[in-house]
């Protein structure tokens, strides 16, 4: 099983994703520089977290012009799985692979801490191995993770089951108190209509062994590994 992680200038979770996917989830992993003109043959593309282009202009806004993004978009359009984490999610929105936009957290502060998220359904390649009803204990670390979509878009992604993760309390209840950043409907992760592209703000690669407070991120990588087999 092969995964390609794309490093943009300013990405800083590429090595963390590499370690988690290779050492903990059993993927063969290659890092590709954003300037490369062609995408290696792969089963999965990961857009990692960080501050591509320093988050200048808008978060994720400048990375979408990277040469390799054209290839990633083509790969996604052909149904290839693309996982965007944190800044990767922001890039997916800016490049139009997913709907919506991000605003600053309502606290107007960067937030780094573990939160709980709940999978909305288990029919996705990203959630099939997550136990039903479980709330996953996974870290967030972002300043602009306040998901926004206009009413029509929101209605559509809710109806089509595109919302894959919501912030919840530890028992899986989706409450206002459990919403760390003001995201509409507690949205933490969404996929496209076909279900092959997922963007999520929480960092599953930061919850993959006992020294890291939680192993719950593994469930997502396991889902992928099994579904893509």
């Amino acid at each position, binding site marked *: 099983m092969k995964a390609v992680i794309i490093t943009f*200038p*300013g990405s*800083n979770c590429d090595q*963390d994703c590499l370690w988690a996917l290779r050492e903990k989830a059993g993927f063969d992993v290659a890092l590709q520089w954003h300037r490369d003109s062609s995408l290696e043959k792969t089963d999965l593309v990961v857009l990692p977290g960080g*501050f591509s282009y320093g988050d200048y202009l808008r978060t994720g806004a400048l990375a979408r012009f990277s040469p390799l993004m054209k290839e990633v978009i083509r790969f996604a359009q052909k149904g290839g799985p693309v996982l965007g984490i944190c800044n990767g999610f922001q890039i997916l929105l800016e490049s139009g692979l997913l709907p919506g936009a991000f605003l600053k957290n309502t606290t107007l502060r*960067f937030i*780094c801490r573990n939160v709980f998220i709940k999978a909305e359904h288990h029919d996705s390649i990203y959630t099939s191995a997550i136990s039903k009803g479980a709330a996953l204990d996974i*870290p967030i670390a972002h300043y602009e993770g306040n998901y926004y979509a206009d009413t029509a878009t929101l209605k559509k992604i809710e109806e089509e089951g595109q919302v894959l993760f919501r912030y919840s309390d530890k028992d899986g209840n989706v409450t206002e108190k459990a919403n760390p950043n003001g995201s509409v409907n507690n949205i933490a992760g969404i996929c496209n209509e076909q279900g092959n592209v997922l963007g999520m703000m929480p960092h599953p690669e930061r919850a993959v062994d006992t020294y890291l407070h939680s192993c719950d991120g593994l469930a997502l990588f396991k889902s992928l590994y099994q579904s893509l087999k």
Partner: protein
Amino acid sequence: MQVTEEVALEHGLTKNEYAAIKSILNRTPTLTELGIFSVMWSEHCSYKHSRPLLATLPVEGERVLQGPGENAGAVDIGEGLALVFKIESHNHPSAVEPFEGAATGVGGILRDIFTMGARPIALLDSLSFGELDNPRTRYLLKGVVNGISHYGNCVGVPTVGGELQTMNKYKGNPLVNAMCVGFARHEEIISARASGPGNPVYYFGNPTGRDGIHGATFASEELGEDKEEKRPSVQVGDPFTEKLIMEASLELIASGCLVSIQDMGAAGLTCSASEMAEKGGLGITIDLDKVPQRAKNMTSYEIMLSESQERMLAVCQAGKEDVLHRILKKWELEPCKIGYLTDDKLFRVNHKSQEVACIPVHDVAEGAPVCEVSAEKPAYVQTMPTYNEGVSLESWQDALQRLVAHPHFASKRWIYEQYDYMVQTNTVVRPGQDAALLRLKDSDKAVSVTTDTNGYYCYLDPEKGGKIVVAQAARNCVAAGAQPLAVTNCLNFGNPENPEIYWQFQEVIKGMRQACQILETPVTGGNVSLYNETRSAEGKVEAIYPTPVIGMVGLLENVARYMTAFFKKENDGIYLVGKPSENLGGSQYLKILNGEERGPCPEIDLQEERKTQQFILRAIRKELFSSVHDVSEGGIMIALLESLLWSGKEWGALLQPDCSVKNRTAFLFSEIQSSFLVSVGRDKEKDFLEQADQAQVPVVYLGKVTEKPAICWEDDILHLAEMRSLYEKALENTVAQ
């Protein structure tokens, strides 16, 4: 412009120094030369007030790979691995533009680490501010934390620890010190020492602008077209470029194409070029027309003195230029060859086909005359009132309630949750406890990192205070199960030309020296920040407390054995390892609750400290403890409360000390040294007590962990539910008001 003595004085040089410059050159310096001397001979670059005292600190040890003198120190941690670390201040810029001031401080300390060939793995910040009831102080704190968060998060180095102390002595002059720790294999460590005459010198990173040029108190026409106010002393940080130059530098070093590398920090191109040449006993020639420039029509003076951020200088091995070009291009950086090394030991600067400076390298880099200073014991030390039993005390419950609501003691969550403390996925013990602990993925090892300070103790008794800060940092490492290895330090003081301040400086160093020797934690580097004082409206000058900040690294051979500070099990016995006291001298209790400064500073016996620390480390290895927390400010009471709250569980404690206690409040809040609060499983108690006895370490039984969320001592009861919300929310609420 004609250089005269008057111009030299305006540059902050003394008459003697100006005379020395003229005799070195055998002529009147050019303006550019004068500028070069003025920054290189400033306190910041030359340590002319502190050098003789710093020389007394112990710098040697089995594990020291690199002591003071390079960009950062380095220690061996076995298996061919090393830690590289250093601390720096950014006090002044942060006081005028908190966001950018603090951000660029982080940028500077990161460069000190990666120019050594080490990958930065952790950042820490030590913050000393005035009380937060002042709106300006709150504005400054918010800006500083935001700036650190912005820069550190963006470059992808976790900020895993730090501290915040709030006392009004820092109101006009807050302290912002940042520490960085890096990881390297021995063979990757590179020096800033240049070698090989003829080797090309390259510049990369951001272009040079007119920012940060100080000493420039001239009429502006003489320096360029622009007005003084357009030449800001604070720069804007660019963490994005920093990340690129970090990756590029590490790749350049690994490729073997470099001879040496240095960042352009304080005193910019002047300092980096001359120091690199000096370390190698060489000369250097640079051509300013080749230096990338952001502003138009910059003079040679301006280019040499600019402190624009995120700029690097590297000496390449002749013949390997293509490797350098390829790596820099990959990281989207432009290689600019600006000069070469020479063997004439001269620092030559050309601009517009003219030589604008020609100075013997050694004289400019190392030749600053040491300043004559005298020390005088200040009167306040003798007249400071001391604690006695007549001082009125509150009940311990009321006292705790009030102290926990004070930012000095409240949870620092509002700060550290703004920092990405998890990136790189090595943070085992997160901020919010004692020292942070990072595992090293390539081995079983883990490292503890901490910064500690206590300006108040150092004010009451600088020598004792100096000892305590080192001991306290070591205790924080020990509590995590890590052996303290070495120290970096940032000495924040007032004006050293004032004999009373100089006395504080000298005494603090005396104390630090003894502690570093006895605890075997040599000093591998540091930074000095002087002139931290403010002038009040009435013209009274007030200095900050003498504030040494200790940054320490420790080593845990087996990460699986790491220890944490919070209680783990009901019914575990709670013990004090150390000697209790009822002396409240020097305590935050008196300072915050009674609003009184009363000595004496707590006693410390360094041999006792060492014995206790070694006992704790051995006992952790033998798995005798459920939890270990050091006792520091706020005494046993604060340590106990933190051990309870940090568990995240709704537990309490039943206190039944097996020693005599005259006054409970004094007993609980006395800031005893060389002690730890530990919890021990019932099945381990016997073993623990025997081992302590053998080691001749004093132990007092304090009570046990209970199911009921309250601290009870006979009829005295304090419920914890409210304590928790006070503790968690106090800082955020204070800052937000």
